[in-house]
């Protein structure tokens, strides 16, 4: 009998499952890929076969033009991968379609969380705690200073600022997949039903969310409207467009940015942000450590982020952990 867990091995460009000859979130093209969610540091085109949720497959088709070899899996559904390995997709609460992947082989259970959060999100089902032997977790916000505030507080800040400047607009920098739609959905939940204006790069992804039944209210494209029409409105753009020439067409925008990094003042100042909104689709320190305690694995593997601090936490709590050096992982806000 082989050594425990020797069937699953981390490599710089992904996690390899030997008995089934498949990769989880590989950063280069492979035969068979299991993909947790649609962000570019986890999903890419070119695989012969891609197993993911229908939402993630739709996102990948839109972004990376991958249509061949798509094999959809519903949340809670298990697929046999061959070689005696079974994979089950479990909600991760990160973005539309995001999943943790539970791999079972020879009575051993490994969960790859992908990116996740524990806070409610109107655009995707919540993270489900599932017991396992090895938890392979992210650690994007793996420092104890990261505590994401309740999103309702951040929405109130945004709407207060909007009301205080009826002649201007608030330009919110938000990642085009996930953050943008969550911000819009949360604004609707906070009672803001005015049209929201979108940068062109946001349009298709918002339509896709709507097709999957996420209610985003009335959306308009900045390009179709005049400065005058946009006064007193919220405009959403990718972070890269915040200080770009593109923003010159807007009515005296107040620059906001929705990101977990906004918790640190200098980070916000570096980006010329006037209104930092601490909104993240990743687990904060409290969520990371609570999740590890609730799942209570035999060992934690940390894929990417600030792994030193989370390793230290394991040491302080007499838990087993190791850091995997995966390449190409980054936070989508940076």
């Amino acid at each position: 009998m082989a050594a425990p867990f020797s069937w699953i091995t981390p490599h710089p460009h992904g996690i390899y499952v030997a008995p089934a000859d498949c990769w989880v979130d590989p950063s280069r093209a492979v035969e068979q890929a299991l993909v947790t969610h649609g962000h570019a540091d986890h999903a890419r085109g070119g695989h012969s076969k891609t197993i993911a949720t229908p939402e993630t497959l739709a996102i990948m088709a839109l972004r990376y033009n991958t249509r061949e070899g798509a094999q959809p899996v519903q949340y809670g559904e298990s697929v046999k991968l061959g070689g005696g390995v079974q994979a089950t997709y479990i909600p991760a609460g990160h973005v539309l379609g995001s999943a943790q992947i539970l791999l079972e082989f020879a009575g051993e259970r490994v969960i790859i969380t992908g990116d996740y959060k524990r806070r409610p999100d109107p655009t995707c089902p919540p993270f489900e705690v599932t017991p396992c032997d090895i938890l392979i977790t992210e650690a994007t916000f793996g420092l104890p200073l990261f505590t994401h505030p309740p999103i309702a507080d951040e929405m109130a800040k945004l709407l207060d600022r909007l009301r205080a400047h009826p002649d201007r607009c608030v330009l919110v920098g938000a990642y085009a997949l996930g953050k943008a739609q969550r911000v819009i959905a949360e604004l609707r939940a906070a009672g803001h039903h005015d049209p929201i204006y979108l940068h062109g790069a946001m349009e298709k992804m918002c339509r896709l969310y709507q097709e999957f039944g996420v209610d985003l209210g009335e959306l308009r494209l900045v390009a179709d409207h005049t400065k005058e029409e946009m006064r007193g409105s919220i405009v959403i753009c990718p972070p890269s467009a915040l200080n770009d020439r593109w923003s010159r067409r807007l009515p005296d925008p107040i620059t906001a940015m929705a990101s977990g990094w906004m918790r640190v003042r200098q980070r916000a100042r570096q980006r010329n942000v006037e209104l930092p909104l601490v909104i993240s689709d990743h687990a904060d320190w409290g969520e990371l450590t609570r999740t590890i305690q609730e799942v209570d694995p035999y060992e934690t593997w940390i894929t990417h982020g600030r792994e030193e601090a989370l390793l230290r936490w394991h040491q302080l709590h007499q838990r087993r952990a190791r850091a995997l050096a995966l390449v190409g992982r980054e936070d989508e806000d940076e």
Partner: protein
Amino acid sequence: MQTFATLLDALVFTRSRNEKLRLIADYLRTTLDPDRGWALGALTDGLDFKAVKSSTVRNLMQERVDPVLWQLSRDFVGDTAETASLLWPEPLGEVAPPPSVDEAVASLTAMTRATAPVELPRLLDRLDPSGRYALIKLATGGMRIGISARLAKTAFAQAFDVSVDAVEEYWHALQPPYAELFAWAADGADPPDTANRPLFRPFMLAHPLEDAQLNLTHYAAEWKWDGIRVQLVHVANESGGATRLYSRSGDDISATFPEMVQALDRPAVLDGELLVRGDAQGGEEGGAASFNALQQRLGRKTVSKQMLAASPAFVRLYDVLSWENADQRGETWESRRKLLESLMPQLPASHFDLSQLVEARDFAHLAEIREGTRDAAIEGLMLKRRDSLYVPGRKAGLWYKWKRDPLLVDCVLMYAQRGSGKRSSFYSDYTFGCWDGDPDTGAELLPVGKAYSGFTDAELKQLDRLVRQTTLNRFGPVREVERRLVFEVAFDSVHVSKRHKSGLAMRFPRIHRIRWDKPVHEADRIEALRKLVRD
């Protein structure tokens, strides 16, 4: 404390000066005494709590957070106060409501080194992260949020619709929480009692002389020396007297130039140029070193004996605002000048001399003299209306500064950086260089300066487009561009500097003309610039 914390956060994230003024003014108008007075003290660096230092906060955190996790977090955030505010463990159970600024200040004042480790946590427990950040900044001093004392005073004046000159004038007589200042400005009480205090008087300033010609029967001319404008104030009082040296912005710089504080023991308010001994300005007769030498002494809280001996300071007097307790500001320049000349023998020649008038037959003659000032390495000429009273600020028609024509050099655009505020989407800050040899035989460009003014909005758009189209490399907000554009750069002087690879640094560089027409190999060489050094 929460309102003050909200104000600090808003100021951190606001770039527009007007918006900062509005935020501070709103706070001062709507907050009660004495909270607003303490806040004003904090914004102007006027509070000091002996028992609470940055190390106090660090030690508290060591007891509460694992040292490895603290260090990793501190490295990420880069600021002890902010890291501590974020990592402070939320207290268990009921806590008292947040303290008012007044309560926090009272508690901080009462702390000793022995009690601080117990008392400071009690305050921190009652605050949220923003409140904790504000409290720690308040307690340890040095807000570092880009608010100058002058900006805070201007906001105060704006809040209560009083003159900022009056605020400046009372300011140095008062202590936080400035109860008399608020009583006067907000509630219409009598102005604060300022007798026998070494007060700052707002400076009278000059307009640039554009193309006008002045009649010298009405205007007197004197050199404009290249130092820093200062005001030296002495008052007599029970404890033997007090002397202060103020900079143009009203900052107290007495500690930086202790020799000047000792040099005046007569009740007086004197206006002049602070210089250090040397012979770059005005030759041997003038006896002043270049601005570069003075700069070595600026910005120091304490000054070494060596420095005092090597670069002694003195003041070249322009004006007298008060002598033996008699306010002279209501007198004409002519009569003040007469008084100033008559009292010179009573001041120690080691530390004071008189700014000489420049005699000219007529304006044309004066222009000729001004042309000759290049070698004297002084800034130019001042023209003062002979019957002008000493009025604060810039009043049209009274005083003019007539700077000598700037030096010009042709440089090549090398790097561009995004501006801030309204210019944040434009590449508006330009670094330019000169050739270190013959450009036709492989010479390289070395950066010599950086400028972000001197062009129109239309030109800015053209420059921005050029930068984007000719980018070679990106370094964060900076782009390196192809060497293809020549700027004619104007500057006041150039000095030897270790900071730049070229070994030179310009003073007040600005874009004089954009030479779209000029080929880059015709731009100037470093040698040409070096010849203009007058250190």
